[in-house]
C-alpha cells in the first residue's frame, strides 16, 4: 500500500494537496492501492476531504484512525437530544447560541451550526468561567473534551470515540513554558501508552498504520509536521520524502547553496533514516546531488495530464479571449505577483486588449492588499482581476491565450504543465524548478532571465501579436503534453514500487 502523508484537507487546498489528489487518481487508474493520510485534526477536515472526492476507501486521518471514527459516520446531535431544557432554564437563545441556567447561575452554553447540529457545549463555574468545553465533530458525536484551569489556560484535552470511549489524552504543562507534556493513548485493548508529545503521537500513528497493511510505501508530502514521526518509526517501512519545493534558498545564484529549506532540513540532515527522496525534475536532482551526493533520489514528475485532457479538442485562437493572460497561483509573496503585474503593464502599454486573471486562494492577505494597491497605482483595475479559487479551471485555460510565470523558485509548477495541456503557451522566468522541465523554448513557451521584465513582455507581445506565432506555440503545447500522460508518469512510480519491493525482499 502506498500512503501519501500530508496535512488535513481544508476547504481550499494548495498545490501539494492537489498533487496528492492527482497522484491518487493516477494510482486508481493503474489499480495500485494507495491512500491519502492526514495528520492533525480540524473541525471541517472530513467535509473538506469529501469535497475533494475522498472517502473511507482512499483517505485516513490520524485522529479518526486512533479514535475509531468511521469516515462516513453521521448522526444528528441537537439541542433536544442533549436534553438540557428538561432540567435547566433557558436564559438566552438565538439561532446559534442557547444558554442554560439554574436560577441566576449560568450552567452551560450550547452552540449549534446552521443545520442545528451541536458544535460546542461549554460548562461554567460559579464565576462564569468556562472550565470544560466539549467539541462535537460535525459528523455528530462528542469528539474532544477540553479542560481549563481557573485562569482559563488549557490543561488537558480528551479525544473520544463516537461511543464515548477515551482514546487520547493531551496533558499540558507550564514547566518551563506552556507546552504539551504528554499524550496518553488508551488502546482498544485497555493498554496505556505514554507518548512524549505530538511528534511521538504521529510516530505511533504511522507505526499502527504500518501494521494494518503489508509492504507499505510512505510518501511524505508534508515533511515539517511528519518527518520526525516517520524517521523514528519502530516498524519496518519504506520511507520517502517528497521535495515539492526547492531544497535550499538562493539556488539561482548558488546551485550548491547549503541554506536549506526549513521544510526539508530535518530529512536532508537525516538521510540515513530514509529510503530516499522524490525530486520532480532533472535539474532539481542535479542540484540536490551537489550537496548530498549520497542521497538516493528518484525523479517522479508531479504533473499528470489526464487522458480526457489529452484527447480533448484543441481550442483555436478564435475561440479564446483576445489578449487574455491567465496565471494560476495562490496570492502569496513567494509567487511574486507584483512582478507579474509590472510585466502586464508593459504589455498593456503596447497592446491595449490585454487582460490578466490571477486564479488562486489568498494565503497572504497583506500581500493581496499590496497587489491591489499596485494594480490601482498602475491604473490596471480593468485589466487585472483576482477571481479567487476554483476547482475547475478548464474553461479559464481554454479562454486564455498566454500564461506568464514570475516566481524565483518552485518545486515544480503544476500550473505550467496544466496551462500547456490546454494549448496555452507559457513565458516564464528561469527559476528553479519547472520551466526547464516543461518548456521547450521555441516550441511550447519561452524562458527569460529572472527579473527581466522587458524580455518577458517582449516574448508575450510576440506571441499575442501574431496568430501564426501563437498557433505555433499552442500546437507545441498540445504536442508535448503527452510526455506527462498517466502512462508515462506511472512508469516513474513503477520505479519507486520496484525499489520498495527490493527493500522488503532484503535486497
Amino acid at each position, binding site marked *: 500500500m502506498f500512503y501519501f502523508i500530508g496535512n488535513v484537507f481544508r476547504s481550499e487546498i494548495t498545490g501539494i494537496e492537489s498533487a496528492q489528489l492527482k497522484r491518487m487518481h493516477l494510482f486508481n487508474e493503474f489499480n495500485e492501492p494507495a491512500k491519502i493520510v492526514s495528520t492533525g485534526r480540524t473541525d471541517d477536515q472530513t467535509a473538506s476531504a469529501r469535497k475533494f472526492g475522498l472517502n473511507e476507501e482512499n483517505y485516513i486521518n490520524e485522529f479518526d484512525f486512533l479514535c475509531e471514527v468511521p469516515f462516513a459516520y453521521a448522526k444528528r446531535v441537537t439541542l433536544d437530544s442533549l*436534553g*438540557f431544557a428538561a*432540567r*435547566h432554564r433557558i436564559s438566552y437563545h438565538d439561532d446559534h447560541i442557547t444558554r442554560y441556567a*439554574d436560577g441566576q*447561575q449560568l*450552567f452551560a452554553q450550547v452552540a449549534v451550526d446552521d443545520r442545528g447540529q451541536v458544535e460546542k457545549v461549554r*460548562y*461554567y*463555574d*460559579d*464565576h462564569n*468561567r468556562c*472550565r*470544560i468545553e466539549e467539541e462535537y465533530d460535525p459528523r455528530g458525536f462528542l469528539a474532544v473534551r477540553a*479542560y481549563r*484551569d*481557573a*485562569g482559563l*489556560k488549557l*490543561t*488537558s484535552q480528551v479525544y473520544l470515540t463516537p461511543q*464515548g470511549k477515551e482514546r487520547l489524552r493531551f*496533558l*499540558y*504543562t*507550564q*514547566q518551563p513554558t506552556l507546552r504539551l*507534556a*504528554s499524550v*496518553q493513548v488508551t488502546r482498544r485493548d*485497555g*493498554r*496505556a*501508552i*505514554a507518548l*512524549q508529545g505530538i511528534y511521538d503521537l504521529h510516530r505511533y500513528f504511522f507505526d499502527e498504520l504500518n501494521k494494518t497493511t503489508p509492504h507499505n510505501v510512505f510518501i511524505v508530502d508534508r515533511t515539517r509536521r511528519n518527518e520526525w514521526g516517520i524517521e523514528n518509526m519502530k516498524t519496518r517501512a519504506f520511507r520517502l520524502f517528497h521535495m515539492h519545493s526547492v531544497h535550499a534558498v538562493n539556488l539561482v545564484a548558488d546551485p550548491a547553496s547549503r541554506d536549506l529549506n526549513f521544510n526539508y532540513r530535518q530529512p536532508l540532515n537525516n538521510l540515513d533514516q530514509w529510503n530516499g527522496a522524490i525530486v520532480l525534475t532533472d535539474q532539481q536532482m542535479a542540484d540536490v546531488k551537489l550537496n548530498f551526493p549520497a542521497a538516493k533520489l528518484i525523479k517522479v514528475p508531479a504533473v499528470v495530464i489526464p487522458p480526457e485532457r489529452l484527447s480533448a479538442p484543441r481550442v483555436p485562437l478564435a475561440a479564446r479571449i483576445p489578449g487574455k493572460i491567465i496565471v494560476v497561483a495562490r496570492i502569496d509573496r513567494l509567487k511574486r505577483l507584483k512582478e507579474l503585474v509590472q510585466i502586464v503593464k508593459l504589455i498593456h502599454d503596447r497592446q491595449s486588449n490585454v487582460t490578466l486573471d490571477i486564479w488562486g486562494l489568498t494565503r497572504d492577505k497583506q500581500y493581496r492588499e499590496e497587489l491591489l494597491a499596485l494594480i490601482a497605482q498602475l491604473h490596471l483595475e480593468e485589466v487585472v482581476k483576482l477571481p479567487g479559487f476554483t476547482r475547475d479551471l478548464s474553461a479559464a485555460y481554454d479562454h486564455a491565450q498566454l500564461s506568464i510565470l514570475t516566481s524565483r523558485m518552485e518545486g515544480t509548477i503544476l500550473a505550467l504543465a496544466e496551462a500547456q495541456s490546454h494549448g496555452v503557451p507559457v513565458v516564464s522566468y528561469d527559476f528553479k524548478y519547472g520551466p526547464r522541465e516543461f518548456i521547450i523554448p521555441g516550441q511550447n513557451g519561452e524562458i527569460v532571465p529572472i527579473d527581466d521584465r522587458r524580455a518577458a513582455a517582449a516574448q508575450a507581445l510576440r506571441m499575442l501579436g501574431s496568430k501564426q506565432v501563437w498557433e505555433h506555440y499552442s500546437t507545441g503545447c498540445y504536442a508535448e503534453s503527452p510526455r506527462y500522460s498517466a502512462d508515462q508518469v506511472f512508469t516513474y512510480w513503477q520505479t519507486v514500487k520496484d525499489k520498495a519491493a527490493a527493500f522488503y525482499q532484503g535486497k
Partner: protein
Amino acid sequence: MDYFIEGTLNINNTVIEKAAIKRLEVFQKIGRPARLVLLEYSPQWALTVNQDQQDSVVGLFDHIQKAEGFTGQKLTLNGLDARLGYYDRTPLSKARTVDYTDGDRLVARVHVIPGGAVDTVTYVGAAEQTLETDRYDARGFLSRRQFWYGGRRTHEEYLSPAGTLQMEVSFNDDGKEIGLIRLIEPDQHFFSMRALIEAYVQQELGEASALVCDRRNYDWLLASWPAQQRFQRLYNSAPTAAVPEAVPLARKSMPTLPAAVVIDEYRGEAQRVVDGWRQVLVSEGERGDGRNR
C-alpha cells in the same frame, strides 16, 4: 433508618472510624437499622469492613460512581500490566512502590498497599513532573483520575466500575477550592462539596431516625439533616460549637459538659455499650413531636 455520618474509611482507620464500624453491630443487636454514610472519597473502604457488614455502608462517591453493591477483586501488579504492560516494571521497593519505565524514562510510579492491591498510579512527564494520579478502588477498578498542571491539581474525574465518566471536578488556582462539580448523568452541577452532600442526603437518604456524627467537620450536616434524634460523638474534649438539639456523647463524664451522655465505644465493655445506646435511642413508639428528648 439511623445514619452514622463519617468522612472516609481506609486502611489507616483511627479508633473513631473503627468504633463507628463496631456501632453497626451494636445497632443491629438492638434492632435499629443503621447505615454508615461515607461523605469523602473512600476507595479503600471495602478493605476495612467485614463482608457481612458491607451492605450497611453507603457512600456519596459510591452512589455517584454507580459502585453501590459492586464487589470486585483487588487489582494486583499483574493485573495492572494489562494497562501498562508495554513498559518495564521494576521490583517492589521497601516503600511499596514500583516504577514502569520506557528505557531510562520513568512513565509511571505505582504505590501498592499491604495485601498487594494497586492503590495509586502516578504518571509523569519528561522532567518527571506529576501529570496524572490515578486512584484504584480496593474492589479493583480505576476509580479516580486527578490531573496536575504546573504542580497544581486542576481537575478530577470519577469513574464507574465499568470505566465511564460519572463526575468531574474542576479546582481553582490553589488546587483545593472547588470551582465546578459536574455530574454527567443526570446532568447536574454544584459549586461546593457541601452542596453536593446536601443534595445527596436530601435526594437519596431522606429523614433519619437517629443521626450520629463522629467528626466535627460534619456538624453542619448533623444540624441540617432532618432527624428524630441527633448525637454529636465527642472524643477527648467538648465541642467548640454545640449543635442545637444534638445530644453530646462522651467516652467518660466531662465536668465541662455535664449534659453529655457517656458511652465508651472505644474501650468500653460490649454489653455496656449496647445498653448505653438502648437507653438513649428513642424507639418508634416513643417518638413524640419528632424532636430529641
